[in-house]
C-alpha cells in the first residue's frame, strides 16, 4: 500500500475497480477520456466488462440493465453527454437502481468547450431529468479524495438504492497527486441484492425493475417513499470540509478545483492575520446546509466562488437563509479563477466592514 503518483481520471477508474465495480459502459467525450482508456485496459484484467456504447443514451441504459442485474456499474461523460443521459438517469432514480455516474464538467452551454467548468451544478443537484428525484452528488478536490469518494459513492448507491454522481472538472481529472490506495475496499453496503432482476432461478416470485406506476395513487406512494429516502440522506450524509473557519468573519464557499484555489486565498489572508476561512461542500447534494447556517451566526459575509455564472450560490443562499449577505465571484467558459483575483474580491468585502 505504497504511495503512488496518479492522475485524477485514472484514480476514478482504479478506485472503482477496488470498490468492486466490474462493469463500465461509456461513449467517448473530452475531457474524461483517460478514464475509459484506463478501464478498457484494466477491467478485463479483473474479469469485468468495458463496453463502448453507440451513444450516451445507449451507455446509461446499459448501466440501467447492469445495475438492475445487481452489478456495481459505472459510466462517465462530460456536459453534453450527461445531458443525453438525463432520460436514463431519471429512469434509474425511478427504479431505485444503484450506480455511479461521473461527470467531468466542461464549459457550456451547448458544445461550449473542453476546458474545466462547474456549470453543471444545477443539472446535477436538481435531479437533472424529469420527475421528482435527487441524485447524491459528490465533489472531490484532490486525487486522494477521488479514490476515497468513489468507494463511498458505490456504498451510498447500494445502501440507498440511488444513482450517485461524482462531479469533477478537467483540472481534477488531469492532475497528478500521490495517493494511497487499498488493494480492495471493504464495502459497508449489503452484498446481496434481493430485489435484482436476475432470472427467477427458483426464487418463487418474480422481480421487476421498473419506474412505471400507472395508477396515480401508486406513483404518489412511490414518490413519497423516494422523498423520505431523500430526507434521510439529507439528514445523515452531508459531508464538508472547514478550512480555517474557526474565527473567520469572511467565509468563502467553493467546491472541487475552485476550493483548492480558495484554500490558497485563505492562506494568503491568514499570513496577513486576516480572519478568512473556507467552507468546502464535499456533498453537493445533500448540500451541507446545517454547518453553513451555523457559520452564518459567526461570519459577517459569505463569498461563493465558482467556475460558473453562479449556481451553487443558490444553495448557499438557502442555507444561510437571509442571516448574512452572500456575494459571488465566478469565472466561466472554461476559465479558472486565479487566487490573486479572488483575493482582491474578498479584500473588498473585508474593507466594507
Amino acid at each position: 500500500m505504497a504511495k503512488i503518483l496518479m492522475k485524477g481520471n485514472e484514480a476514478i477508474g482504479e478506485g472503482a475497480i477496488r470498490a468492486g465495480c466490474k462493469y463500465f459502459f461509456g461513449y467517448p467525450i473530452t475531457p474524461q477520456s483517460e478514464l475509459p482508456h484506463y478501464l478498457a485496459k484494466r477491467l478485463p484484467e479483473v474479469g469485468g466488462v468495458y463496453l463502448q456504447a453507440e451513444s450516451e443514451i445507449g451507455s446509461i441504459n446499459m448501466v440501467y440493465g447492469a445495475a438492475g442485474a445487481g452489478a456495481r456499474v459505472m459510466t462517465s461523460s462530460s456536459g453534453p453527454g450527461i445531458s443525453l443521459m438525463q432520460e436514463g438517469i431519471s429512469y434509474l432514480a425511478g427504479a431505485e437502481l444503484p450506480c455511479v455516474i461521473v461527470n467531468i464538467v466542461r464549459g457550456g452551454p451547448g458544445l461550449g468547450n473542453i476546458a474545466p467548468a462547474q456549470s453543471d451544478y444545477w443539472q446535477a443537484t436538481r435531479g437533472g431529468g424529469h420527475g421528482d428525484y435527487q441524485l447524491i452528488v459528490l465533489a472531490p478536490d484532490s486525487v486522494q479524495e477521488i479514490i476515497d469518494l468513489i468507494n463511498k459513492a458505490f456504498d451510498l448507491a447500494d445502501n440507498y438504492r440511488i444513482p450517485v454522481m461524482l462531479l469533477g472538472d478537467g483540472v481534477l481529472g488531469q492532475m497528478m497527486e500521490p495517493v494511497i490506495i487499498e488493494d480492495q475496499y471493504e464495502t459497508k453496503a449489503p452484498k446481496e441484492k434481493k430485489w435484482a432482476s436476475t432470472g427467477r432461478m427458483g426464487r418463487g416470485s418474480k422481480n421487476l425493475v421498473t419506474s412505471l406506476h400507472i395508477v396515480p395513487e401508486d406513483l404518489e406512494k412511490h414518490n413519497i417513499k423516494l422523498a423520505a429516502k431523500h430526507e434521510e440522506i439529507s439528514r445523515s450524509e452531508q459531508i464538508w470540509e472547514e478550512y480555517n473557519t474557526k474565527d473567520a468573519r469572511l467565509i468563502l464557499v467553493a467546491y472541487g478545483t475552485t476550493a483548492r484555489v480558495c484554500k490558497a486565498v485563505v492562506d494568503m489572508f491568514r499570513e496577513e492575520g486576516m480572519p478568512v476561512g473556507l467552507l468546502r461542500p464535499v456533498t453537493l447534494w445533500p448540500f451541507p446546509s446545517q454547518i453553513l447556517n451555523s457559520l452564518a451566526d459567526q461570519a459577517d459575509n459569505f463569498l461563493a466562488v465558482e467556475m460558473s455564472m453562479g449556481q451553487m450560490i443558490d444553495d448557499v443562499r438557502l442555507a444561510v437563509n437571509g442571516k448574512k449577505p452572500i456575494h459571488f465571484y465566478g469565472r466561466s467558459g472554461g476559465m479558472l479563477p486565479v487566487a490573486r483575483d479572488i483575493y482582491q474580491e474578498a479584500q473588498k468585502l473585508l474593507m466594507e466592514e
Partner: protein
Amino acid sequence: MLEAILIAGFGGQGVLSTGQLLAEAGMVEGKHVSWIPSYGPEMRGGTANCGVTISDNPISSPVVTEPTTLIVMNRPSLEKFEKTVKKDGIIFINSSLIDIKATRKDVRVYYIPANEIAENIGNGKIANNVILGALIELTRVVTPGAVEKSLREVLPPHRHKMIPINLKALEAGAELVK
C-alpha cells in the same frame, strides 16, 4: 518550503514528463506534491506546460499561476510566462533555442544552452534534464538521489538503459550553476 515550478515549451519537448519526474522525486522524499498539465485555453498555440508544486505542508492549490521557478524551453513560453514569476524567483532559459533575454530585474535568470550540452553528452532529448539538474542544485527542492530513484519509476523498464545518460545530464546542469 513551497516551490511552485512551471515548466513550459513546445509539445514534444518532454516538459510534461520532466515535471512528472520532479513530482515523483518530491513524493519519494516524503514531500507533498502535485502535477498539473496545461489545460483548456492554455493549450493553444502548440505550447505545453505543467505546474509542479513541492511543499513541506499540504498543497492548497495545485494550480501554478505565480511560479517560484520557471523553466522555459522555447521563446513563446518565455514571452508568455516571464511576467508570472514571483519576485525573487528563478527563471531558467534554454538559450540553445531562445535568442532573447529576460526583461525582469527582480528575479534571478540563468541561461543554459541545454540542447548543446545534451547533444554533447550524446542525446538532445535529455535537454530538459540539464536544466532540471541546475534547478535542483540551486533550489535543493529534491535530492539528486530521489531523482535517480524516480527515473526508475517514471521511465518504462525497456528505457531503463537511458538512466545513466539522464543522470549525466542532471550532473552537467548542476555543475553549470555551482
